[in-house]
Structures are given as structure tokens and as C-alpha cells.
């Protein structure tokens, strides 16, 4: 297991290095070069020269790259063009909101998707199976920002059941601990805050969960169908075990292997989906920030975001791979 972990960590390092290379190339290729983005349009030539010198753009390309990586490691992405604040600070302030939203969406997707996929597999060929499969096909075909906007119009604006925007109601006081407000509310005893945060989470989380939910339903169904036909399930049946034991210990424990992999991959793409959802609900997470950065062509901010998200993505997949080792003894021992 240790060797496996070390090997995966090395792969992670290589992947991150490659990522900085790609990002650096991207940054250099931006229209007009970085100085155009960091300066107002009416900047003088002297200002440009000064900036080029201060950014080290006169240095040889490898030195620039080294500098780029050095700054990235120190989380120094420069300042946002639109707010003027350091990008790292902006991201750090907003990350908890996105993490909270993504976790909530994943909770919905996993909590609903696995049982639904299991039922669909068990009742293959029934209307339930048909509904689950066609629903999940449809789920991947709805543009997420449209779904979010429709949910907002119907449930928040027309029916008034849920709040339209933000993470908490206006004027509520809140003690920040981790930034995950539901969690914070629970541990500080501010249960009204926790509940308020939950209420604000519902619609964005549902919208964001649509694609992972659809994917999890399908992968669970396929995986369960695969496992149910395996000889060891027949052995379990031949032992006369109770159906609940067969389901839990023999079917699901094996069916979880591909599901776990997919969940890891989905978590990464959730951050990207959050960009669209958060902007609809003014959720104040990293996604809203990126929406703003994109519409205002705030390139340094975009770059910081991409780097952070990619690191997240790679790290999550590493964790999933390692947890895979826990789920599957064959991986654990082979390495």
C-alpha cells in the first residue's frame, strides 16, 4: 500500500508539473501577452516597459517559467483585475461556499442515485427501470444553467417556497468557523443559521446534482447488473443467506468499486458546474467569481481558478484511487 501511495504521489507531481506547463503556455499565448491584461488600455509605452521588466518578461523563457511555477507554489496568482484584491484571497474566501454546494449536490446524487440505480437493476425491464434509465439520459441533456434558472423561477419566484439568492437571509448574524455554513451553524449551536443555510442550499444543490445523479444512477444500474450475474453472488445464494446480507456484503460491496471511481471524477466536474449554478443563484462561491472573471476577461483570476480547481481535481482522484485500495483488496496487495 505504501509503495502504491508513493507511486501515485509521484504521478501526481508529474501531472501538476505538466499542468503548470500547459497553463504557462496558455498564459503566454493570451492575446497581446500578459501586460495587456494587467494594464489599462491607455497605458503608455514606459508603463509597459516597466511592467515587462517587473514581471520578468525580458528574462529568458525558462526563467519566466521557473518564476511562474515558483509563484504558483506560493499561491501567488497576482491581483484580480476587477476587484484589485489578491486572487488567492478571493479564492480562499469563496472556496468554502463552493465546497459546501458541491458536497450538498454530491450528497443528493449519491443518496438518491445509488438506491435508484440498484432498484432499476433489480427490477430490470419494469416501468421503474425504464423511468430511471430515461430520466438519467434526460438528466445529462439539460443545460445546467437553464435547469437552475427554471428551478429558481418556479420554486423561489413564483411559488415563493425557497429563497432566490445568496447563502443566508439578509441581516442574519453568523459565526464563521470553517466557512461551511450548515456545518458551522451546527457546531456553534446556531441552529437557525444552519437551517437558513440549508434552505438556501436546496435549489442550487438540486440543480448542480442533476448530472452526477444521472451518471450515478446509470453506473450503479450497470454495475449491479454486472455483479448480480457473478458466480460469488450465486454462491452467497447457495448458502441460503438473507437477501439483505447478499445485497450488502456481496452485491453492493463489489458494485461500489466502479461507482467510487465515477464519484471521484464527478466531484471534479462539479466545481466546473458550480460556475454556472452559482451565478444563477448569486451564491457567492468560487463559481460566481469565475463567472465574473470570464465576463470581464480577468485572466489572472481565471488562471488562478483553473490551477486551483485542477489541483483539487487531481488530488480528489488520488484520494479516490487510494480509497479504491481500501475497497478492493486485490489492488491493495498487488502493489
Amino acid at each position, binding site marked *: 500500500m505504501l509503495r502504491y501511495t508513493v507511486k501515485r504521489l509521484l504521478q501526481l507531481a*508529474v*501531472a501538476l508539473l*505538466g*499542468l503548470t*506547463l*500547459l497553463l504557462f503556455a*496558455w498564459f503566454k*499565448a*493570451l*492575446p497581446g501577452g500578459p501586460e495587456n491584461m494587467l494594464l489599462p488600455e491607455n497605458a503608455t509605452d514606459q508603463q509597459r516597459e516597466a511592467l515587462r521588466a517587473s514581471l520578468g518578461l525580458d528574462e529568458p523563457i525558462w526563467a519566466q517559467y521557473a518564476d511562474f511555477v515558483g509563484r504558483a507554489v506560493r499561491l501567488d496568482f497576482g491581483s484580480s483585475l476587477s476587484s484589485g484584491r489578491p486572487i488567492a484571497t478571493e479564492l480562499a474566501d469563496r472556496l468554502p461556499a463552493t465546497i459546501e454546494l458541491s458536497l450538498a449536490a454530491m450528497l443528493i446524487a449519491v443518496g438518491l442515485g445509488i438506491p435508484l440505480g440498484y432498484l432499476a437493476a433489480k427490477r430490470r425491464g419494469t416501468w421503474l427501470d425504464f423511468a430511471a434509465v430515461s430520466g438519467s*439520459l*434526460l438528466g*445529462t*441533456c*439539460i*443545460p*445546467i*444553467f*437553464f435547469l437552475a*434558472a*427554471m428551478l*429558481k*423561477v418556479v420554486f423561489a*419566484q*413564483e411559488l415563493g417556497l425557497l429563497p432566490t439568492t445568496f447563502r443566508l437571509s439578509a441581516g442574519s448574524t453568523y459565526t464563521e468557523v470553517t466557512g461551511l455554513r450548515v456545518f458551522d451553524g451546527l457546531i456553534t449551536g446556531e441552529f437557525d443559521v444552519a437551517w437558513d443555510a440549508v434552505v438556501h442550499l436546496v435549489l442550487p444543490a438540486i440543480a448542480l446534482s442533476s448530472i452526477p445523479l444521472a451518471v450515478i444512477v446509470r453506473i450503479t444500474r450497470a454495475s449491479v*447488473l*454486472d455483479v448480480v*450475474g457473478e458466480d460469488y453472488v450465486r454462491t452467497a445464494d447457495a448458502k441460503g443467506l438473507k437477501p439483505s446480507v447478499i445485497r450488502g456484503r456481496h452485491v453492493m460491496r463489489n458494485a461500489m468499486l466502479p461507482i467510487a471511481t465515477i464519484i471521484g471524477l464527478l466531484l*471534479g*466536474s462539479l*466545481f*466546473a*458546474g458550480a*460556475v*454556472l449554478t452559482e451565478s444563477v443563484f448569486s451564491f457567492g462561491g468560487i463559481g460566481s467569481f*469565475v*463567472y465574473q472573471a*470570464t*465576463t470581464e*476577461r480577468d*485572466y489572472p483570476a*481565471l488562471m488562478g*481558478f*483553473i490551477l486551483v*480547481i*485542477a489541483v483539487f*481535481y*487531481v488530488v480528489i*482522484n488520488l484520494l479516490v484511487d487510494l480509497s479504491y485500495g481500501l475497497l478492493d483488496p486485490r489492488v491493495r496487495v498487488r502493489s
Partner: protein
Amino acid sequence: MTIARIEKLDRLIEASVSAREAQTGSLLRQSLRRLKRSPMAVTGGVIVGLFVVVAVLGPFIAPYDPTAQTWGKEVFLNRNIFPGPRAENWFGLDHLGRDMFSRMIVGARQTLLVGIVATLIGFVAGAALGGVAAAAGTFGGRWGERVEAVIMRTVDVALAIPMLLLALSVAALLGPSLSTVMIAVGVAQIPIFARLLRGSMLAQAHSDYVLAAISLGVPKGRIVVSHILPNSLGPVIVQATLVLATAIIEAAALSYLGLGNPDPGSPEWGTMLADAQRFLSGAPQLAIYPAVGIIVTALGFTLLGEAMRESLDPRLRRQE
């Protein structure tokens, strides 16, 4: 043995064997037959067919010029209220007083174009990378292996960036326009196609018939081009069908993020949907028409792709 007995035996065997024979035939023909029987494939095929017909005929069958604006008391931009469906405008008018029905019909073409061009970019570039990597790694000796390693590590890194972000960064390079959307979505698909074709080709490269061809002394280039490649394309084509759906949805998302066509004069569903978000509470129909168009079309391509995948995959076939 009497002749009569032999004949009877033959007839009896024939009767019991004919059922089995009906199940054999060429792999491609089998797949096609299964496709025709699959309700998924038929539904998807009908949707895609309709979409393509509308896309081709669009400008000729649209009742109005999709860019002509009808100003006047009918369109109250400041109050977010626009005429809904009525006899002369089946889908009503949009915020600039343009006929929505005509815009939907004409917009199908652009939407299909965005999907196809984006998919083609991903397909061609990805297949080239994956194909070169597989061929070099298999037959190129030590240098070939290095080439393969470099290509595939780069692809792995690109895969680590969520698709929308990859598209975002490309769009940032090119500035907002419809071609930006196509290129951005297409580029974001390159790693998937590269991985897929390489995997598929490697599987073929280790198969017995390739081994046989090598031992017969067939030139390696010819093995790759005329044996490995054609046999590896199946999964890639399936993926292309599925990517067409994704491309149409992602293109809408990029339009929503303001990276699409800055001048929404010529209609395209993604741009129309993104534009309509502003009027969602007052005139949801403006969003719903293009949204339904996108959803149904994407569903059509998805159904078709999934059905094709099932008909090609012997493992899934066994489950059905």
C-alpha cells in the same frame, strides 16, 4: 442406411439448426439489425433525422425573416412582456420583436453546425494524437515509446482539467464569437478522443490477426492503416455521437458565460437560450423553446450513441 432415413435426419437437423443460424451473420449486420430493433436507437434516429432536416431546410421553410424586428407597442422591452404564441407567430415574438418560430427553425442549422464542427475538431485532433501515440508506441521502437509517453502524459494532464474549464480557457484566448465556442468545445474533447482511440488501437494491436499479419511480413505502416485503424474506429464513432450531444449543451453554457456570439443577430439555440435568461420570470417561453430544442436534440444524439454502444459491446449485449 436408406436414403429416406438420411433425408429425414437431415430435415430434422435443419429444423433445429435454422433457429440458431438466424442469430449469426456478419458482426456489422448483426449490430445494424439490433439497432433497428432497439427502441432507443429508433427514437434517437428519428429525433436526429428531424433535426437534420430542419437544419438543412431551415431558411426555406421559416415563415419570417428570423432577424426582422417588429417594433411598436407589441414589444415592451422595459416591462419584460412579449407577445406569446398566436396565429401569425406560433411561438410569439422575442425581446426584439423577432418571430421565435422562424428563429428556432433557422437556428437549428447553426446549432447543428456548432455541434458538428466542435465534434470534428475533437475527433480529428484527438484521433490523430491517439493514433500516432498508439502506432508509435507499438511499432516505433524506443523513440516511438517516448513519443507515445509524451503525448499520453499531456493528454492525461489535459484530462485533469474539467471540460468546461478547458473550454473556458480556450475561449479566453480567442475572444467571444461562435467560432470560439466551436473551437473551445472541440479542443476540450481532444483528450477523450485521444485516449479512446489509443486504447482501442492497442487492444487491436495485440490481437491474433495483427500478430499473424506481422509474422507474414506485412509492412507495419500497412498493418496500422488497413487493419488496426479500421477495426478500432467503432468505439470512437460511438463517442463522437455522444460528444455531439455534449457539444451542443456545452456550447450553450459558453454562450451563457458570455463567450458566444456577441451579436446574436443570426439565431443559434445556445445563444438564444443564454439571451433569454434575462427575461426568464416575465417571458419564460423565450428560454423554453431553445431549451427544449437543445434538450431534445441532445437526447436524440445520446440515445443514438448509447444504442450504438450497446449494439457494439458484446458484454452489454449479453445483459440485454
